[in-house]
């Protein structure tokens, strides 16, 4: 998603303040605020389809939570990095029992989905994927609507590409989850 602004250095303590003053979607990357542009229509449809499929699977198997685009995850404190993926899955056991926390998640998701916009730069996207993997995300899907394919990133593993006629799998993160890639793009 496109970066629209970059300002001074923020800390963990400033995050609440940003929530109050910045109305759109934002991230903080190593202390720097980045406001994110709203997604285009196709991006929204594709992210929605993946969310729906992941949600249905996670709910019916009781394996965890599937979160929508606005959710913030604090990946590091000093300097502070807070990222907001397009879709995230968090295994049930990662979340404390009782009421769900009404704060930013202070941990990394297990699975992250990022849907590419045509304006997404290599520099920003490669940095974002690197941040997710370093923070401990087991599986990152970068969904390319133009190329009709999904790039699969895992720590210490080569990048894999799943094409339009292939199956996207939840692997060991969401065992049993399968989705035909063409279903997401048609």
């Amino acid at each position, binding site marked *: 998603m496109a970066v629209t602004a970059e300002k001074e250095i923020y800390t963990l303590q400033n995050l609440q303040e940003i929530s109050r003053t910045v109305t759109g979607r934002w991230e903080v990357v190593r202390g720097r605020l980045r406001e994110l542009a709203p997604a285009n229509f196709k991006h929204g449809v594709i992210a929605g389809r993946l969310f729906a499929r992941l949600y249905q699977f996670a709910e019916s198997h009781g394996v965890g939570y599937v979160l929508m685009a606005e959710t913030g995850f604090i990946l590091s404190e000093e300097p502070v990095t807070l990222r907001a993926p397009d879709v995230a899955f968090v295994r049930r056991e990662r979340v404390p029992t009782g009421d769900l926390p009404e704060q930013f998640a202070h941990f990394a998701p297990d699975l992250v989905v990022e849907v590419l916009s045509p304006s997404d*730069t*290599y520099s*920003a996207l490669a940095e974002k994927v690197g941040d997710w993997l370093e923070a401990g995300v087991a599986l990152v899907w970068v969904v390319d609507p133009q190329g009709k394919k999904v790039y699969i990133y895992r720590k210490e593993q080569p990048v894999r590409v799943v094409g339009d006629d292939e199956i996207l799998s939840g692997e060991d993160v969401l065992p049993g989850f399968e989705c035909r890639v063409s279903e997401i793009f048609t």
Partner: protein
Amino acid sequence: MAVALEKRTYTIDDLWELSHRSDKRMELVKGELRELAPANDEHGYVASQLLLVVAQFVKQHRLGYTFAAETGFVLSEEPATVRAPDFAFVSRERAPEDWSRHFARYIPDLVAEVVSPNDTFTEVTEKVDDWLRSGVRVVWVVDPAQQTVRVYRPDQPVRVLRAEDTLSGEEVLPGFECKVSEIFAR
């Protein structure tokens, strides 16, 4: 940054013809012509620094040949793909007896791409994929904005090198080492 031109399928001969009639830098990707815009100053500077250190090492150790940014390499004849990396190294084993004085019909051992701020994720990722699938052994994606070098090798995880890390020639350029910060330093 590549700009797609008129939609028709071009052959390698068409591109060769065009390269004589036009002074624009162009690539051919699966028969589609792409114009390469002139690079920004930082891009050009960083590319030249990298070329300088590697070329010196290659020459000194008689390992092969280095190529500056305009060189076209034929990655496939059908569909026609001719790419022009920012920098390439061809070992003596892969290099021809004499120059063909045409696009190179041999594959570099090492390729470097310096990314510009507007280069999209898809564009750069596809370029890296093309190089690796054609037999390039190492691709360095040099990002001046992030001060990083990402090292791509076939069937291996991507490695991210930061300013304080050392860029190594591994078995492609045995003995070559250079501090990442050295490439970016003014």
